């Protein structure tokens, strides 16, 4: 299944918002740092999410990972805040 460019972009933004909400330690990581390192920090967080949910840890937004991201859930972050 090859996502269309638009779907990829949507998924990317959805994932970015998800990771910022549930996998970012507030107050510990100034937002600027995240922007400066770009994908790298995002890959780290995708791996954290995959580990938490018991998925294969690839660091990529594969289908299983996107399925989890799209599931309704609790608003408390998964990482300590």
């Amino acid at each position, binding site marked *: 299944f090859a996502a269309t460019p638009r779907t990829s972009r949507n998924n990317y933004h959805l994932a970015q918002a998800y990771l910022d909400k549930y996998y970012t330690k507030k107050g510990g990581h100034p937002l600027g740092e995240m922007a400066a390192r770009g994908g790298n920090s995002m890959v780290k967080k995708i791996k954290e999410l995959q580990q938490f949910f018991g998925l294969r840890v690839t660091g990529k937004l594969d289908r299983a990972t996107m399925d989890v991201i799209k599931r309704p859930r609790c608003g408390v972050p998964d990482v*300590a805040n």
Partner: protein
Amino acid sequence: YRLFPGEPKWKKNTLTYRISKYTPSMTPAEVDRAVQMALQAWSSAVPLSFVRVNAGEADIMISFETGDHGDSYPFDGPRGTLAHAFAPGEGLGGDTHFDNAEKWTMGTNGFNLFTVAAHEFGHALGLAHSTDPSALMYPTYKYKHPYGFHLPKDDVKGIQALYGPRKTFPGKPTVPHASPHNPSIPDLCDSGSSFDAVTMLGKELLFFRDRIFWRRQVNLMSGIRPSTITSSFPQLMSNVDAAYEVADRGTAYFFKGPHYWVTRGFQMQGPPRTIYDYGFPRNVQRIDAAVYLKDAQKTLFFVGDEYYSYDERKRKMEKDYPKNTEEEFSGVNGQIDAAVELNGNIYFFSGPKAYKYDTEKEDVVSVLRAGSWVGC
């Protein structure tokens, strides 16, 4: 299971909760019921009890909110984030918010409120998200049937790591809501013996002391049986401060600290309430004794060396109270532990003594030993 950093937990066993805002997609009664069942899921595993208040600040404030609602965790409209809750602590601590943009339900045609509430109350009590997919504290929504629901093992381990287990009867299988241990039965016949509360209930007289109560037919001295309070009143606290019955309403009221319970016979009528509904001032923290006077349709509440009078017809506290007990009831000395009206007399129990007060003569006409009421 996971705990929050610093392992915040509540330092008391009785927590108050208040539902301050409801959702249009369920009736208030349904919301109340779902919240009560969700709290019960946790109280069946640890020695915590939850008391509902209808006004003012509660430990766990519960509300349905939309979008940005001022706690720096804005909701995001339908799906996505369904709810959130804050770890134990002052102020926002323990507070639980549900996204009003969701369709909440008691069943499965939307998001089941019991399922989400039970999860969020886990946070409000100190649990973080669990990585165990079978756990209630797993972050993503998965419908849980409310009736007959039991906490999964991972959640029981987590919550008991914070508050310890709710103890059970020795030798019996684990029973939720079982009273903590097999209490010893006080010897009511020793000279210093007294009661915590005495009340009529239907055709019987009930005498409460510590975790035990005795039942006797009014006109029979034989067949008096002790049993544990929690075996007949499972939701009541394990001991009682005061009790009275309004017979023509078939309703009895039991008091413990700043809360009271309403029963019909032995059947609880809903969750505990706050004594401030009666109109007591805030400095009154507990009731020592209560007695309903049938002809006057008034209930007297004894607190320390004073007493209040509550008009049961008008459902409001009478003016010019409290009054001093000894001044109004001559011959009755000491703090009142319990009181009951029978055949036009009020029987005041103070320590080991029981005063028979004739309301017509307005005087004490005899003094017995409290234990004589249960056959000593």
